[in-house]
C-alpha cells in the first residue's frame, strides 16, 4: 500500500526568494508525524506546498499514491486534507457557526460533534470570530478543519498562545482523534513533550531541507540539540 503522504525533493519559493531546497517526508495511513525545526526553517512552507497554497517549483507531492503536485488548493482539500493554519485565520466577520458551516462537508464530523469537542465554541455560536479570544479562535480553526471531514489533519502550531489548561485540552482532543483511528496527522508545535506523546515519526527541517527523519523515539538529545537548539 502506498503511503498517505509522500513528499519528494520539494523545492518552493516566495517570489524570488527560495524557501525550500529539497524536503522529503513520508506519512503512512493512520500515522502521526511531527514536523520540527527552528523558526523560519520551512515548516509552514512545506505544509503550504502540501495543501496547494504554494505551488512547488520542483519535486513531487503524492497523496495516497495520487500525484497532487501543483493542484489547486480546493482540489487537494477535497481529497481529504484539513488544514489548521499558522495564525488561526478564522473568517473574522463571520460567526462561529458560519465559520464552521463554510467548511462543512458530509461525514462524521458535524456542528454537534465539534461543539462536543469544544463546548466553548458551542456557547459562542453566534459571536463573530473577530471578537473571540485567541484561544477561542484556535479552537475554531481546529473545529473548522474537522468540519471538512479530512483523512489527514494538518496542524501548524495549533496550540500557540493557548493557556496551559486549554493546551492540555487540545492535546487531549488530538490524542482522542488519534485513538479513534482513521485520521492521520501532521503536527508542527514547539512543545516536544506533547509531540512525543502523540506522534510516531518525526522529520526535522533546517534551511528548507530534510535533515533528519525517523521514529520519534529515535529522536535523541543529539538531534534536538543540533537542530532545535534545546
Amino acid at each position, binding site marked *: 500500500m502506498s503511503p498517505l503522504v509522500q513528499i519528494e525533493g520539494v523545492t518552493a519559493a516566495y517570489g524570488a526568494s527560495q524557501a525550500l531546497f529539497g524536503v522529503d517526508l513520508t506519512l503512512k495511513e493512520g500515522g502521526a508525524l511531527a514536523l520540527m525545526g527552528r523558526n*523560519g526553517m520551512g515548516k509552514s512552507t512545506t505544509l503550504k506546498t502540501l495543501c496547494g497554497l504554494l505551488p512547488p517549483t520542483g519535486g513531487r507531492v503524492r497523496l495516497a499514491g495520487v500525484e497532487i503536485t501543483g493542484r489547486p488548493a480546493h482540489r487537494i482539500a477535497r481529497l481529504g486534507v484539513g488544514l489548521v493554519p499558522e495564525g488561526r485565520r478564522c473568517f473574522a466577520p463571520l460567526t462561529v457557526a458560519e465559520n464552521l458551516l463554510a467548511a462543512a462537508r458530509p461525514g462524521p464530523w458535524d456542528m454537534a460533534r465539534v461543539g462536543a469537542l469544544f463546548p466553548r465554541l458551542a456557547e459562542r455560536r453566534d459571536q463573530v470570530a473577530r471578537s473571540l*479570544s*485567541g484561544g477561542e479562535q484556535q479552537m475554531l480553526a481546529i473545529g473548522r478543519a474537522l468540519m471538512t471531514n479530512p483523512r489527514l489533519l494538518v496542524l501548524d502550531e495549533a496550540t500557540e498562545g493557548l*493557556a*496551559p*489548561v486549554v493546551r492540555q485540552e487540545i492535546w487531549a482532543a488530538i490524542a482522542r482523534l488519534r485513538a479513534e483511528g482513521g485520521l492521520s496527522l501532521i503536527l508542527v508545535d514547539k512543545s516536544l513533550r506533547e509531540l512525543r506523546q502523540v506522534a510516531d515519526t518525526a522529520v526535522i527541517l533546517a534551511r528548507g531541507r530534510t535533515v533528519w527523519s525517523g521514529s520519534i523515539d529515535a529522536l535523541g538529545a543529539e538531534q534536538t540539540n543540533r537542530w532545535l537548539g534545546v
Partner: protein
Amino acid sequence: MSAPILALDRVTKRFGALEASRAVSLDLRPGEIHALIGPNGAGKSTLIAQITGALRPDAGTVSLEGRDITGLPTPARARLGLARTFQISQLAMGHTVLENAVLGAQGATGARLSLWRPILKDAALRAVAEAALQRVGLAEHAGAVTAELSHGQRRQLEVAVALTLAPRLFVMDEPMAGLGLEGTAAMTGLLDGLRAEAPILLVEHDMDAVFALADRITVLVAGEVIATGAPEEIRRNRDVRVAYLGEEGP
C-alpha cells in the same frame, strides 16, 4: 513598599451581556515583573486595551504614577511613558529596522514633529535607536527592511522599539508567542534584564517563562481576579490549578 507606577482600581468593562473585566484591581511597582495570566478569553487583552487606551472602561480608574489617565487617548498615555508590545507585531513593514526604532526615539523626546529636518540625520535619535537594537541583538540588521525579518526578529524589534521610548513601564502582550525554544530563552533573558529599567506588566501563556521571570502573578478568570501573589503561592493555589494551570502544570 514603593508607590505603584501603574494602578487599576475596580476596572469594569462589558460587551453586551459579557463582563470582560469585573472590578479588576491590580498594580505594578517599580522594579518588578508582574505577570497577568489566565485562560483564553479571561479578559487579559481587554484589560491591556484599557490600560493602553484602546478601550475605555465602563467603570473604575486607571492611574499612572498617581495620575488618573482613564480618559486619556493612547498617544497621550504613550507620552506619559507607557510602552507596549503587541501580541501580533505592529511594525511599519516597509521601513527599515532602524527607521522603526528611530521613530520610537523621536516619540520619546515628546518634541513636536519637524516636517523639514531629515530624521535619520539626527545623531542623538540614531544613537538611542542603535543602542536599543544592540540590546536586543538586531544591530547588524539595522539596514534591513522589516518585512524581511523572521518572526522572531520582529518580536525582538517590537521590544527594541519599546526600549527606545525609555518608558516608565512596559506592557507586553505575549512577547514569546511564536518564538521557538531558543528564541524564548533569549527573550526571557532580555526581559529579565529589563525590569531594572522599568517594571513590566507581562501577559504570557508560556508558564516556564512566567515562573522564571515574574515577581508577582495575577490570575484572571472570566474577567475577575481570582488570585494575586508570588509565583510559589500561585503555583500552589488550588483554584488556579483548576482554572488555568491544570493538574500537570509546572
